[in-house]
């Protein structure tokens, strides 16, 4: 009987199904099971001795605050210039103008007779998108920071997600037409999450919450939204993010 080699044994992780041949061998070979058990004891020893200190729910926000504080002033060159006029295709510019005009009418009272310059339109869009991302971020943070035990009433988050959805769709389409390849996927991911929050149950079970939280964390949506929001804030000189308060049930 060929036993499992030390090399193969060293790769076996508790809880993970080994290959069919390895599994069959382990089932019938006490020696190899014993060697595997010794390996698992060693890993358990390392894992228990190196217990990771807990981090609170606000940890991500704290890290981001520290990172934001250390960002150099001259980092604009790293930004793909989603709204830089030189990089926008004609269709993008057209879409930009349409959206900016729409948003200008929505957020500010602009006299009809006064035409908006391209610079003003761009700035309006930057500010509006920045605000949209801040609001979206607030919804996601409340979900991510919700207590691990117990359910969560997300009625108010659902209402906000519903409002954000329409705006997000508009920004995503604009970004896509403008060729903003870095921004578009983030807005797509954000839209899927907002949709799930808006259309999902208003009372989330711990399992629903864990699943939603996992999706947010796995895709790094919050991080991406923060990066783009920070860039827009710098570009549009927006105020910093507001203090976010969590709602618990």
């Amino acid at each position, binding site marked *: 009987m060929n036993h499992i080699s030390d090399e193969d044994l060293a790769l076996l992780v508790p809880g993970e199904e080994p290959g069919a041949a390895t599994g069959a061998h382990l089932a019938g070979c006490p020696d190899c099971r014993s060697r595997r058990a010794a390996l698992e004891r060693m890993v358990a020893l390392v*894992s228990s001795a190196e217990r990771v200190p807990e981090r609170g729910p606000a940890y991500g926000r704290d890290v981001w605050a520290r990172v934001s504080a250390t960002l150099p002033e001259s980092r604009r060159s790293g930004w793909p210039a989603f709204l830089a006029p030189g990089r926008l295709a004609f269709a993008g510019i057209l879409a930009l103008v349409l959206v900016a005009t729409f948003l200008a009418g929505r957020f500010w009272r602009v006299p009809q007779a006064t035409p908006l310059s391209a610079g003003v339109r761009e700035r309006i869009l930057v500010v509006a998108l920045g605000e949209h991302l801040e609001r979206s971020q607030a919804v996601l943070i409340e979900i991510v920071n919700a207590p691990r035990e117990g359910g969560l009433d997300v009625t108010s988050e659902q209402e906000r997600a519903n409002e954000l959805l329409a705006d997000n769709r508009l920004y995503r389409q604009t970004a896509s037409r403008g060729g903003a390849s870095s921004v578009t996927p983030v807005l797509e991911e954000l839209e899927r999450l907002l949709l799930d929050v808006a259309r999902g149950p208003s009372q989330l079970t711990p399992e629903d919450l864990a699943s939603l939280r996992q999706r947010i964390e796995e895709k*790094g949506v919050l991080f991406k939204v923060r990066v783009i929001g920070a860039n827009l804030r710098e570009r549009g000189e927006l105020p910093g993010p507001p203090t976010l308060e969590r709602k618990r049930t």
Partner: protein
Amino acid sequence: MVFRVAYRMTGSEEDAEDVVQESFLKAHRSFARFDARSSFGTWIYRIAVNCAIDLIRRRRQAAASSRRMGDDDLDPVESLPSNSPPPDRDALSGQIHRSVAAALTRLSPLERAAFVLRHLEGMPIESIASVLQSRPNAVKQTVFRAVQKLRRELAPFVGAT
């Protein structure tokens, strides 16, 4: 997730915090180059693991140069920051903790990364290869070397448990 890996790689809360901050700073700077089709998790893991490896190497170089300067009594394991067991823990627990810390310190940074990702994070070999920008077979060998070293170092405790 990033803090957990950083802590397991460095064995120090303070160093892990530095790694987390540096990782997110680097991620922010290189975000424009992030390919949206690839996994964000793998990308951020890669940055964090590389930051941790760099930090471990810097620490080792500093320790080596401090020994060259005549500070021969300085044991690299003794000098591990914030890893000492709390005074209320029993002696055996303290001894195990110190032995595990010492054993992990004796792994190369790459071996430690491969071991942590495979056995403590449960990551598939292909993903580890992507994080470490290596080939799966090379990763398997690295994990194997790490496991062999740890088994040798920790044999007295594993046998007793």
